[in-house]
């Protein structure tokens, strides 16, 4: 809803990290930043899907405002001065990543997504090289019941990209989340094994948009899981055009 283009939108000028920019007023901070090579980190944001605003890695400072805003959900405005990379933000992002790594069992060295994982890359990009909070060490299931795909809840960061792509692009709404708080988990249908799902079309979009090794193709070994998202901007535009 945030990105619905409306006619007669104005063009506004603003600053990101002391550089001057202009953009349509219905663009979000993260869109402008990414278009211009400013790497604001994010896990849940994905162009072509609705805005979720949950990972909080993309929070930025607006000069003159005491509050931080998530750049994926905030539109640019005339005269806005945005800071994306202060020391404070860097520290916050490292802590958020530490929390994510502590939450489930992310063992990069034995993960099929090793080397192609957004979480792993973000840790490096943000300089998060060790986790100070204790690991939760909670047991999570691996569901290999689907012929083509596998879900490993140990690697899930609850970004909800799978839920959104299945609902908004594929239209099946096979995925959703169950529970709440720290017990939240993604599910298929009535929390039944994925392979038994009647609603799943087996399209694999969820696998391709998953940032980590939580959703992967069957038969991949360590480091083999590459993800391909070229379909998303295309399908998203086609859906909007309808």
């Amino acid at each position, binding site marked *: 809803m945030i990105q619905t283009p409306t006619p007669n939108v104005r063009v506004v000028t603003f600053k990101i990290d002391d550089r001057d920019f202009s953009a349509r007023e219905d663009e979000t901070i993260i869109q402008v930043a990414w278009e211009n090579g400013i790497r604001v980190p994010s896990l849940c944001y994905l162009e072509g899907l609705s805005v979720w605003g949950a990972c909080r890695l993309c929070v930025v400072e607006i000069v003159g405002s005491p509050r931080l805003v998530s750049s994926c959900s905030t539109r640019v405005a005339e005269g806005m001065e945005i800071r994306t990379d202060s020391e404070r933000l860097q520290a916050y992002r490292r802590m958020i990543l530490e929390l994510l790594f502590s939450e489930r069992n992310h063992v990069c060295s034995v993960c099929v997504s090793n080397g192609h994982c957004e979480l792993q890359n973000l840790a490096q990009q943000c300089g998060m090289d060790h986790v100070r909070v204790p690991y939760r060490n909670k047991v999570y299931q691996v569901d290999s019941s689907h012929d083509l795909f596998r879900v490993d809840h140990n690697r899930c960061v609850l970004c909800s990209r799978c839920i959104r792509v299945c609902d908004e692009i594929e239209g099946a709404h096979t995925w959703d989340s*169950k529970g*709440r708080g720290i017990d939240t988990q993604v599910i298929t249908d*009535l*929390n039944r094994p994925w392979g038994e799902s009647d609603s799943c079309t087996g399209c694999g979009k969820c696998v391709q948009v998953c940032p980590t090794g939580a959703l992967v193709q069957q038969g991949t070994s360590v480091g083999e899981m590459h993800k391909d998202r070229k379909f998303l901007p295309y399908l998203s535009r086609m859906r909007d055009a309808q």
Partner: protein
Amino acid sequence: MPLQRIKPTPPSDDKRWKLIDVTMRRNGYAGHALIETLHSVQDAFGYLDDPAMKFVASALNLPLSKVYGVATFYHLFTLKPKGKHTCVVCTGTACYIKGAGELIDGVSEKYDVPLGETTADRNLSLIGARCVGACGLAPAVVLDGVMLGKLKVDDLLEHIEKVI
């Protein structure tokens, strides 16, 4: 052309499904009536099982995963049948300050039932509640729908013995 909406048949010929249908009909079988509908299923049957959720999903035209997601998000909904008797201990701040924790420990220990669970013989469920709004009676307990106030562990255990 949109597909004709099919009215699903209830999971059983239990008359209580009529009550649930009334709730859905009052809301025009709209998806936004999901929570209301789940309330009425739980009021009628005591809990939400898979057949019930499947029925509600198809009657309201909602994805299964969404129904499950909503049913498990809200703590008042339960997917497991409750015990014959329920002991709801208020864990609001006033009750906490006045010793709700000891009440929970006491019941938990005597009946070997952790908070939020039901005894193995399905006779007693021990449930924690977020403030029942009777802070003047702290610590308060609702035992089988009856409010008991200003309790000590022994009082509560005595009350429970009387009902079960």
